[in-house]
């Protein structure tokens, strides 16, 4: 910690470094921010921008940037603020971390902070005719009633640039040129896996550019959470990436437990871990089913769903619900597992393991599958790091980014499993990573079954002393877990009350849409479907 502090003060003497929190916190003025960011990236290996959290501290607007060091996997966060509420402006870091493109657009959308140097300063989630910035504390919800007329297409964009004298001016631009042939896909389209919209500029059948229009399922979860207590907030985590419901909820629980200093019993942590892995298994099976169906192999979809029902049965018997289980709670889990739980899990593992071999036989070697996926939608390792593509999609590009290995949480230290990494970064590899990861899930589950069996049928499933009224101390916390589609992060800022000041969810799928343009460019329009299916995003997780 002291080393980092020294290095940063050397790089930028004006920056204040606070090393008392869980991660080092750097506070810097906007004037020095871009230079410091460049130095952090080039000289200190902070290659990954993990999260950009827009903030409204009432007296100031700003951002908290979470950076990850790719060699040591340490996190660092930087706070940049501006006191100008009328024309808030910060310097963009898109040129350093391309992932900031969509992240900064989101902050602009919610807080109205303009990023100088950002190439495409448009709204991200809200309607083009939206009035005001909803996550600001002084936002009036009555200013935007339900409008049933169609919104206009966003054909124009703008960017703000700064000249040598420090004067900022706005330059208008166009999203597509006049002579481009643009087709629209979505928002209601069967292969977009939800309500997603792409505008694709084509040259014949070749994709030249894709403009992603998101926000058709934006529900404002972050703002809703500001009016809720911590246990109430938990249910929203399950409704973002519903294919990683347990994992997201686990993350939120861990973040609050960290802040309150609650020790979770070993058994509870073990049950949570098993549920996480079952969820991952179910998610990858769904991804297999959808990917195959998008390529016309409808039968494979039925196979995937047949096995998922086994997992749903386990959830059903233990939690009482098939989806949105609401099983983890702050301090542990809501109830102990069902008495046949271990038997059921073992049975599901056996069946799925046997059937995985069948999947490979039926689909993986199929000539259509090979031709449509091999070499299509390439994503290099450097791009994966630049765009912060974590999870199976990042590992298919050769980046070791599994949070379970890099920053082990829960009980993952005690388990023996491999991180599945492929090299090519095409659709085939992304598909294979998921298939191989299912085998690892089964491996972890079997070990967990043995451990749980050794602990007996019943045990302590929740921490005995969990405060009824939860008041987090003043400060902010960030927790990352490996969800089914990548690193999922929860940011909580508290002022000491029962409700948070700001909650931010860093969803893996949001970064995935950032590379749709990159991976689809110069491919056929028909491959758009294969590529997006292999990236495997869940739309409500993007929009939150």
């Amino acid at each position, binding site marked *: 910690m002291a080393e980092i502090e020294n290095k940063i003060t050397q790089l930028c003497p004006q920056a204040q470094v606070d090393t008392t929190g869980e991660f080092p916190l750097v506070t810097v003025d906007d004037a020095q921010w871009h230079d410091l960011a460049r130095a952090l990236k080039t000289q200190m290996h902070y290659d990954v921008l993990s999260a950009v959290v827009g903030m409204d501290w009432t007296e100031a607007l700003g951002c908290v940037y979470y950076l990850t060091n790719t060699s040591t996997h340490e996190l660092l966060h930087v706070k940049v603020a501006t006191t100008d509420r009328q024309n808030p402006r910060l310097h963009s870091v898109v040129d350093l971390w391309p992932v900031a493109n969509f992240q900064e657009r989101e902050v602009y959308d919610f807080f109205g902070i303009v990023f100088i140097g950002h190439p495409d300063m448009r709204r991200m*989630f*809200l*309607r083009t005719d939206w009035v005001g910035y*909803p996550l600001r504390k002084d*936002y009036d*919800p009555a200013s*935007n009633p*339900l*409008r*049933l*007329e*169609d*919104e206009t297409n966003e054909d124009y964009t703008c960017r703000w640039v700064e000249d040598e004298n420090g004067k900022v001016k706005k330059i208008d631009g166009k999203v597509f040129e006049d002579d481009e042939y643009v087709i629209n896909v979505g*928002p*209601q*389209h*069967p292969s977009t896996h*939800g*309500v997603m919209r792409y505008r694709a500029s084509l040259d014949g059948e070749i994709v030249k550019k894709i403009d992603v229009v998101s*926000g*058709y*399922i*934006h*529900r*404002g*979860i972050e*703002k*809703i959470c500001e*009016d809720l207590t911590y246990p109430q907030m938990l*249910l*929203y985590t399950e*409704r973002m990436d*519903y*294919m990683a419901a347990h994992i997201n909820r686990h993350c939120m629980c861990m973040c609050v437990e960290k802040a309150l200093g609650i020790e979770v019993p070993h058994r509870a942590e073990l049950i949570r871990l098993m549920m996480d892995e079952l969820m991952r298994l179910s998610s990858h099976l*769904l991804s297999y*089913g959808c990917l195959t169906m998008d390529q016309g192999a409808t039968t494979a*979809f*039925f196979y995937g*769903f*047949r096995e*998922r*029902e086994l997992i*749903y049965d386990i959830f059903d018997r233990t939690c009482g619900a*098939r*989806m*949105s289980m609401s099983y983890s709670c702050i301090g542990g889990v809501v109830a102990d597992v069902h008495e046949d739980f271990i038997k059921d899990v073992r049975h599901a593992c056996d069946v799925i393991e046997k059937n995985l071999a069948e999947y490979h036989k039926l689909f993986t070697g199929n000539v259509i599958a090979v031709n449509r996926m091999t070499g299509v939608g390439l994503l290099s390792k450097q791009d994966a790091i630049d765009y912060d593509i974590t999870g199976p999609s990042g590992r298919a590009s050769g980046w070791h980014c599994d949070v379970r290995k890099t920053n082990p949480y829960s009980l993952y230290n005690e388990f023996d499993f491999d991180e599945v990494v492929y090299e090519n970064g095409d659709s085939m590899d992304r598909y294979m990573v998921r298939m191989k990861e299912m085998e690892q899930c089964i491996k972890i589950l079997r070990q967990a079954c043995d451990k749980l069996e050794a602990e007996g049928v019943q045990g302590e499933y929740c921490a005995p002393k969990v405060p009824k009224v939860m008041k987090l101390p003043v400060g902010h916390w960030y927790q990352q877990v490996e969800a089914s589609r990548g690193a999922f992060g929860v940011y909580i800022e508290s002022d000491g009350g029962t409700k948070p000041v700001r909650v931010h969810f860093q969803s893996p799928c949001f970064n995935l849409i950032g590379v749709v343009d990159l991976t689809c460019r110069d491919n056929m329009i028909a491959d758009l479907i294969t590529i997006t299916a292999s990236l495997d995003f869940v*739309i*409500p997780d993007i929009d939150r």
Partner: protein
Amino acid sequence: MEVKIKSMKHEDFKDNEYIDNLVEQLRAGGTNIIVGKLDQLMNWGVSNSLWPLCFGTSCCAIEFMCLGAARYDMARYGFEVARNSPRQADYIMCQGTINYRMAPALKRLYEQMAEPKYVIACGSCTVSGGPFKNSYCVVKGVDEIIPVDVYLPGCPPRPEAFFYALMQLQRKIKVQKYFGGVNRKEKLELKYDGQALQEETK
């Protein structure tokens, strides 16, 4: 009086009173035997080949996919031909939250569907806004935008509940009148309008 659904008994449905009242209303005044039989034939066909529009925005859509898969297998009821174009679909099962950006698109999808068309509001979000009721951009129930035939609560509802809702829709369809009833109703409306017009002119 009762509307027969093959796989479920009359008393197994929970809101029979409402359907019974509806039946009574529709059958008041009797029906011409030829027209009535034609209606029956038509309703038999429509209610057993309900084609949904693929319209899923969030979690409920996954459960709907389970409905299409092997265990629940909605093909047994003739519901399985999920259409991607609204022009070929009979009903929208609106699965998942509708927000301000999506609302015009949903309305347009509904308008693009051919008559007869039905809507099932599936899941708490579409019934009332559900957990997102306090959000700044969520529609508080799809009935603000389009007329709803069956409300199906749950977050998300179980596949069995989907079947229940679909069978409720079948019951509703089985009592509707394409031929005699509708024409009479239209005439009545015209007559009423005429009267109102006359009264106004007086």
